[in-house]
């Protein structure tokens, strides 16, 4: 027995809203860790879209869910690597504000 009554467009709009909140977070924040958190929100929105489509269109095919799992693994790996980089930057520069890390700036 399925959970009925929610149109697909509602899930897509929720995903779009989450994505835009993430975009705002990336553009407006100066703290590197906040930027990484905003990127995670964006990735969440993407996977939500994938799973919603997989459920509503053709549940017999597992393409959507397989894609979603691979995106999850990639997102977790990227978060881990990004945070390792941030800790490394903190040890040398003693700051995590985006504008103050400008060693390579010309």
């Amino acid at each position: 027995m399925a959970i009925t009554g929610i149109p697909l467009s509602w899930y897509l709009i929720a995903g779009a809203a989450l994505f835009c909140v993430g975009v705002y977070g990336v553009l407006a924040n100066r703290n590197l860790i906040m930027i990484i958190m905003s990127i995670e929100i964006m990735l969440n929105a993407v996977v939500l879209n994938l799973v919603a489509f997989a459920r509503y269109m053709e549940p017999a095919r597992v393409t959507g869910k397989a894609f979603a799992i691979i995106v999850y693994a990639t997102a977790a790996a990227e978060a881990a690597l990004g945070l390792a980089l941030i800790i490394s930057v903190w040890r040398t520069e003693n700051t995590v504000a985006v504008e103050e890390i400008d060693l390579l700036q010309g």
Partner: protein
Amino acid sequence: MDVVPGGSTPIPAFLLRLLGAFAMALVPLVLILFLIWESRKVIGRMQDRLGPTNAGTYAGPFALFQTFADGIKILTKELIIPDGADRPVFIAAPILVVTVAIAVWAVIPLGPAGLQVVDLDVGAFYVVAMSSLAPFSMIMAGWSSRNKYAEVGAFRAVSQIVSYEIPQVLALLAPVLLTGSLSLQNIIQAQSVPYIVAVPLAALIYFLASAAEVGRLPFELAEADSEIVAGFFTEYSGMMFGAFYLAEFINNLTAAVVFAILFLGGWRGPWVDQVPMLGAVWLLLKAFLVFNVLLLFWAAMPRLRIDQVLGFNWKFLVPLGMVVLLAVALVDKLLPLVGLTDPWPRSLGLLLANMVLGLGVVGVLSWMGRRAQRRIVRREVAP
């Protein structure tokens, strides 16, 4: 309690489900009242003293109501929040820890059919996911206290718990592999022979990893009583401390119950088919047994250092877990080719494989120990 939720569920059925969930949440809380008393008695006897007794005021036969008295005492104590602490986070931490501890009970099957809040397809995975939420309350408590000892305790506890999740999941995959399903009900129903007979190594790894996850000695770094005051809940008092204490006991009970489900056969036992409620009794008896083994660990063993704890995990348990999983998968695929598909021969075949693996590990470890011994002797002899 077996109603499927959906857009067209009538309201009374939904309320019935909520009531069932509430009743299930009360089960660990009620059991804890008895188990705390029992723990104190057993530990007292192990340490050559009586546990709580009726010296002074009467507290029930054998001081059974001591836990009530302690609970009332803790409830009436003042909740002190330090001045520089982060108030919302400080107050949210004990709430979170108890919520997460009880949330696992949503998928625990107490009987053959219907005595479960919801039979998720991914029950075993849900248990793992809920127990991975535990580090959060510790971080929140340690960070918001603004106390060096609390932060140190929080870091240690988090590193220990996050590390030991890996062998726990690897060992949990062994019964899942043998059953072919993540649902806890299916795992119990496939255990005509309990899995502790078939994969004792995986059971051992799961037991040790669970002991480390819930913070039992010898892995009791998080609240090393004599070293870092009280670890990450140094600054807590009154019922907030009571919540952490309660959550720790509930976690111990949950670990025992999940071990009983995965490896000891869950609610299986004589006469369960006729009287389904008897399943709950069998499950709780088995869990009680495992809980007491964990308790005896606590009473008898000294504490390990953080580097010993993490070294044990990464250098021993994780490789062993991976090898056990591979061996179990391989043997389970090869056995039908040899023709052994009935439960008992299959379990004995797997047991044989586990024994061989275990002897191999013991052999390797003793060879390494002898080599280290020879090196020490050589260093002492040479001037």
